[in-house]
């Protein structure tokens, strides 16, 4: 065990860590906690789940009354997913604000983790086979038909048939089970690359002259962060477990009845708004993909003299405007496709993409002016 314990020791005990990293640096460990919660609760749920279109909905509902504490695991898993995305978005926002993307390998692996977690969340939402599960699966898998030439064949291949049906559900279950372990492996790689260079810090300068050991300082700080993060999660689980959910998903999936408003969970609404903002199907799909993949561009954006936006006032204005745009896109994604929401989504989508393209040049201008 000695080489393994040595790796663990160097990662969480004696790891030299900057003394001045703030609460925004807690989200890395919090995401690890979220992943552990999701894997643990998901494993328990899978013991009582049957992936079949005739049985899934029934089995999930029955488990509330018949399997001891299965309601707890389901509420924890469903709300844990929401908190996972809260942590992800705040973690990425920290990275964007403080210039963590200069760690190219860490950042790239992080974007891959984000994509896999999004995929995993989408696949998992289909499993209870409610109305929103079925129709969400139909809408999102149908997007692939926009691919030129091979589009319709790809969709049939994904579905395992000519519509979203049992074959789709069973493969989604298999993939949903597999992906989190891939994410766990990538998280290890993410940490490996990070520990190669060491954490950044809010000032954006080198922290090599002032570091402390990870244990006890950051073990305790991360523990406090976990308590403040898991507390609201458990409060939701116990006192209002379906607050963030959609009532439509308590109706069994029916291919003959389309819900009035098909929409994903809140954490995908910003991307959904961008998808629907483009009047062209392929254009919408490309915009959806680019909305997430544009993060990969950040390490290649023009570098500034000082890492991060702490000392760039107009950069800060742009960053917090992006936060506002993100929140408004989330709101717009829940609205029906009617005026004025269409125009609002289009304007917001333009502003969203503009940030990534303009932030580098704008901050470089400040460098030159000073």
């Amino acid at each position: 065990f000695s080489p393994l314990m040595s790796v663990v020791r160097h990662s969480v005990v004696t790891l030299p860590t900057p003394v001045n990293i703030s609460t925004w640096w807690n989200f890395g460990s919090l995401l690890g906690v979220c992943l552990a919660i999701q894997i643990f609760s998901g494993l328990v749920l899978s013991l009582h789940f049957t992936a079949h279109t005739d049985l899934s909905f029934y089995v999930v509902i029955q488990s509330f009354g018949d399997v001891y504490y299965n309601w707890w695991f389901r509420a924890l898993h469903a709300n844990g997913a929401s908190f996972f995305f809260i942590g992800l978005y705040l973690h990425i926002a920290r990275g964007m604000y403080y210039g963590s993307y200069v760690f190219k390998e860490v950042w790239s692996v992080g974007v891959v983790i984000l994509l896999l977690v999004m995929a995993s969340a989408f696949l998992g939402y289909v499993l209870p086979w409610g109305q929103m599960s079925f129709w969400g699966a139909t809408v999102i898998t149908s997007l692939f038909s926009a691919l030129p030439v091979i589009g319709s064949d790809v969709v049939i291949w994904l579905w395992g048939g000519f519509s979203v049906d049992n074959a789709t559900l069973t493969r989604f279950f298999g993939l949903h089970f597999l992906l989190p372990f891939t994410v766990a492996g990538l998280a290890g790689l993410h940490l490996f690359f990070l520990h190669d260079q060491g954490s950044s810090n809010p000032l954006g300068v080198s922290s090599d002259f002032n570091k402390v050991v990870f244990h006890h300082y950051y073990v305790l700080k991360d523990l406090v962060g976990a308590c403040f993060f898991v507390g609201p999660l458990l409060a939701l689980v116990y006192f209002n477990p379906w607050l963030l959910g959609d009532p439509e998903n308590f109706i069994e999936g029916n291919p003959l009845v389309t819900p009035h408003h098909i929409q994903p969970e809140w954490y995908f609404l910003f991307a959904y708004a961008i998808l629907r903002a483009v009047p062209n199907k392929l254009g919408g799909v490309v915009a959806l993909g680019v909305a997430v993949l544009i993060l990969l561009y950040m390490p290649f954006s023009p570098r500034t003299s000082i890492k991060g936006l702490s000392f760039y006032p107009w950069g800060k204005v742009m960053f917090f405007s992006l936060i506002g745009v993100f929140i408004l896109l989330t709101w717009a994604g829940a609205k029906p496709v009617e005026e004025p929401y269409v125009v609002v989504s289009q304007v917001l989508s333009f502003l969203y993409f503009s940030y990534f393209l303009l932030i580098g040049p704008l901050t470089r201008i400040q460098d030159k002016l000073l």
Partner: protein
Amino acid sequence: MAGWTVGKKVLATALGMGATGGAGLYVALDESVKADLTLHPPKLPWSHKGPIDSFDHASIRRGYQVYKQVCAACHSLKYIPYRHFVDVFMTEDEAKEEAAEIMVRDGPNDIGEMFDRPGKLTDYLPMPFPNSAAAAYANNGAVPPDLSLMVLARHGGEDYLYHLLNGYCDPPEGVELGEGQHFNPYFPGGAIGMAPPLYTDIIEYEDGTPATQSQLAKDVITFLSWTAMPEHDERKKFGMKAMLVLIPFTALCYYKKRQYWSLLKSGKYVYNPKKY
């Protein structure tokens, strides 16, 4: 921004406030003119709504009586077995007696025949129609939905269902209803296939509670809340216990963290330039 003139600061502040005010105005206007044309149900003070409020189990029992004598004619509760009643609003013997009132198709027996037998605790509440086609035929083309999860399956939950049951009225001028339809402003679209199901004294409660229309609605919806959330009471009880542990634990962790960090936080960096 530290080097800005007063004028620039005032302008930036005004712009920020204007943007915030504009956003607020937009939200207010959006809220006032909803995209859908359905009347939204006002909130009601349900006795089980608070974070430490349990179900009113006497109300669940009365609600089951309302369901059985009024709603069960058309609506199923296919996810609810009789055994779930035990220790919630019936004793085991009462639940067995209740189950025994129905006849259930079972089999095959030793000679390979299907037979009917009295219900047991393990049986589910009976379906009023053999299939959805029969349900639609008997109800003017509309299939009465299963009620097991209805409280969770509709926006507004209990409030929506209560106002739906009590909100029937004459259609406004100009609204045309189809054959067999009724007007209800809370139902999406306004035209509902279900006739007003409840009216005062439609049933007589076992426990002598006056069976007013609002009482009937309140009880049946409390019952349906239980069918949708059978874990409700246990969940909140567990939650209170969890908070009783989590809050002091968080405080303790926070104290230890501050204690360990106090050495670093109270440190002072002094620059002593080298004297040549």
